[in-house]
């Protein structure tokens, strides 16, 4: 933990509102985006944002110096978002447990289309919208695996720990999530090419 962060935490533990404010300002974007990616719902993301900081400040006295404040807040936010994600019922999710690679699938056009600069590709608003929407179709465990590993950049072991699952199960969920998202994207690129 950096000295400055240690000072901020110590002040916040003593009840200094400016220190608490600093903690919120430094971490709110991270928490909000994580919550938005996991829940795919702005209202739920706001609830996660509030609950995360309320819980963090309630238990700040238990925070051990030497740990990373960001990691600690991140864990609280992940737990909160995943709990909400699991509780929510939606009929629009796909079943990915049987999803496998189709060796006969022709991905030649999609492969060529994806050779370009990803930032340029993302100038296509419809593509961007579809990428976002596709994550929303993933069942909770697959979404958690994909968001934590491929977007948030957690190591597989850490992601499994955050998601409360085994490493083997997380790898399987991640694999299926990636295939599903890739297939959605490939279908869109093929369709755009044909039109």
């Amino acid at each position, binding site marked *: 933990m950096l000295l400055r962060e240690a000072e901020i935490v110590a002040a916040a533990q003593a009840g200094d*509102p400016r220190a608490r404010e600093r903690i919120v300002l430094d971490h709110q974007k991270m928490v909000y985006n994580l919550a938005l990616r996991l829940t795919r719902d702005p209202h739920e993301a706001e609830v996660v944002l509030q609950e995360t900081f309320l819980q963090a400040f309630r238990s700040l006295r238990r925070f051990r110096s030497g740990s990373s404040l960001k990691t600690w807040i991140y864990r609280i936010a992940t737990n909160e978002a995943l709990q909400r994600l699991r509780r929510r019922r939606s009929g629009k999710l796909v079943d990915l447990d049987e999803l496998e690679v189709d*060796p006969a699938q*022709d991905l030649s056009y999609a*492969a060529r289309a994806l*050779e370009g600069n990803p930032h340029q590709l*993302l100038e296509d608003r419809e593509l961007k919208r579809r990428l976002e929407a596709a994550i929303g179709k993933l069942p909770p465990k697959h979404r958690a695996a994909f968001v934590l590993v491929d*977007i948030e950049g957690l190591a597989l072991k850490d992601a499994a720990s955050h998601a409360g699952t085994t490493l083997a199960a997380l790898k399987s969920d991640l694999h299926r999530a990636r295939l599903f998202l890739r297939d959605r994207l490939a279908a869109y690129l093929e369709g755009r090419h044909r039109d």
Partner: protein
Amino acid sequence: MDSKRAAGPARREEKPAQPERCREILRRLCAEAGKRESSPFCREVASHLKSCASCRAQAATLRGTLELYWCLEGREVPRAVAARLRKSLGLPKIACK
């Protein structure tokens, strides 16, 4: 796998389709990402990809998909959301500049 339909120019003679082999390679490629390039696993995958256009397309599209998701930028916290957060935490309002 149908290598006739696969992506990109053939770099060398393509081997006949081996669906089960390709499926296993790809499953491991996806699930075990993050291994060192010098590991036996990665050498095995690289060797297979050189001779299998279909798996090259599978790998390229997976990598391309992940790159697009990495490049999606995070959003700023909307002002109203940030204001309600501060209120819920009992923090003072921020004065507009």
